[in-house]
């Protein structure tokens, strides 16, 4: 594992914007004084006249993007997840979601892996907020390959999209050449029959690692990557529940309102199945190195293994 390439999905975001920008004149980018951190600066450097800094004014930025989208442009509006989904929630709800405008919200620094900045900047509520908006697509890519594919898919899709990217460099485990991405489609990374582990974002790689350890312990775990949290790949989740009988969800997000609850809501109606939700347990984060925080909050392969063993023992 030592020589695995690691890239933060925010970097993938900036690179994908630059690549798309070269091909599509109607793509423009807005940022709110965080271009260096959200990596829209990568696009800005290539296309300075198509990148518009809105200053520290996220509410204005979202509505400006809505206005630009109404003119036929495809704006990507970026800030940290906390200030995009959080601060500008009502702007997204009323001026992007309600009119179903073609605005792409590129939210970086999602989850507690923001690290040292602490709880004020560690957004663990964005899936919940964005999922509640009718017609909003919500995605959280797991690695560099998937993140760039998700940005491309978001551009091609007509309608509002919320993309969550991370600050922390994470392992690249998808093969660029063979990878195919489709909004709303989950990806089975490993087949299994004892328990299905459904993960999103950086937890996907942890789930894959957990799957390996579980196999050694004699537990056959199905590992599913759900990059698209909304619309959820219902068929794939229900199939996993039917065939495995036990579900574990993993997300770098509050257990309130995120992937776990989306899966529970689906299964309670379509296929009641025991579910364990791994996520941030309805509490705020705090400052610290990202890796240590992830471990402390149980967002790790080790914790997934523990939960899976416990669930399978029952």
């Amino acid at each position: 594992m030592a020589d695995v390439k690691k890239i933060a999905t925010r970097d993938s975001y900036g690179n994908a914007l630059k690549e798309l920008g070269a091909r599509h004149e109607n793509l423009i980018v807005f940022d709110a004084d965080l271009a260096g951190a959200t990596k829209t600066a990568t696009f800005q450097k290539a296309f300075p006249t198509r990148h518009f800094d809105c200053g520290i004014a996220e509410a204005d930025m979202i509505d400006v993007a809505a206005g630009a989208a109404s003119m036929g442009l495809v704006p990507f509006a970026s800030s940290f997840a906390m200030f995009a989904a959080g601060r500008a929630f009502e702007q997204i709800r009323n001026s992007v979601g309600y009119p179903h405008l073609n605005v792409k919200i590129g939210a970086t620094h999602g989850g507690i892996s923001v690290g040292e900045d602490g709880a004020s900047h560690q957004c663990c509520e964005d899936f919940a907020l964005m999922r509640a908006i009718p017609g909003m697509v919500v995605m959280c890519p797991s690695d560099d390959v998937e993140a760039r594919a998700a940005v491309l898919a978001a551009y091609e899709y007509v309608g509002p999209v919320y993309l969550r990217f991370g600050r922390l460099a994470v392992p690249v485990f998808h093969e660029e050449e063979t990878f195919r991405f489709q909004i709303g489609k989950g990806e089975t990374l490993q087949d299994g029959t004892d328990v299905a582990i459904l993960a999103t974002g950086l937890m996907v790689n942890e789930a894959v690692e957990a799957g390996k350890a579980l196999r050694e312990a004699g537990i056959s775990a199905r590992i599913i990557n759900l990059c698209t949290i909304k619309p959820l790949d219902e068929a794939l989740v229900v199939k996993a529940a039917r065939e495995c009988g036990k579900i574990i969800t993993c997300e770098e997000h509050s257990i309130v309102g995120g992937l776990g609850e989306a899966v529970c809501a689906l299964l309670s109606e379509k296929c009641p199945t025991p579910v364990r939700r791994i996520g941030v347990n309805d509490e705020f984060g705090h400052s610290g190195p990202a890796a240590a925080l992830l471990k402390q909050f149980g967002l790790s392969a080790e914790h997934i293994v523990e939960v899976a063993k416990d669930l399978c023992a029952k």
Partner: protein
Amino acid sequence: MTTNEKKQLMAAACIVRMGVIKGTHAAKAGHPGGSLSAADLFAYLYEKELRVDPQNPKWEERDRFVLSKGHTAPGLYAALALRGFFPEEDLLTLRHIGSHLQGHPNMNLTPGVDMSTGSLGQGISAAAGMALAAKYQGKDCRVYALLGDGELQEGQVWEAFMFAHHYRLDNLCVIIDNNGLQIDGSVEKVMSPYPIPEKLRAFGFEVAEIDGHDFDQMEAAFAKAKSTRDVPFAIVMKTVKGKDVSYMENQAGWHGKAPNDEEYELAMKELSAHLAEVEGM
């Protein structure tokens, strides 16, 4: 402006006001006060100023109008109906289930509505985004946004003003309907936005101060807006809330209340008399 042109605008404004009364009466809800204060502006915009095509409401090169004070939709709807975007009878379906005339403007339902609004402070940012996009696309269309004076209390409005000046949006014309009243009383007592023109100038706007019920002043202000280069333009218009319906004038209570049957009759009688007077001029 010729006398005849002015007469036509006065008649149009009167018809817009009647549409406001008809709509809110039929809806048994809605916001007549601010719709009436801006009725002359609605009439002027749709009868004279905006380059729009009722036969082709989504015409790409059209001028855009964003009703940032979205609650005064009854006035906008009446002006759109008068301009021919949809039948005037539709006004009677305002706020009814199944109607395209929602309580606040919906760009996907109502022909001629350029932006969905209603949550104060957001429309002006969207208008700035449209103006920026028009420049980027090389379109020579103009963008107009109408704000309430109470709406200036929303911090986002000032973010948008900063943005408009920063990006030199001289294709953007902001209009402030200074009727002086909001739900809880006078804007001055609730949370004073004054002095409005000075604040706008400090934010880099070229500003015209006019009587919002005077078409000559309106014409001069819009002409100045169009010839202004490099900075955004703002028209601060003094108006009377509830204008031309005697019992509604300058009454904060008529911000968001519909006339009952008796009040409806009285308002229509007054407006009909006013229309007859204008037509006899």
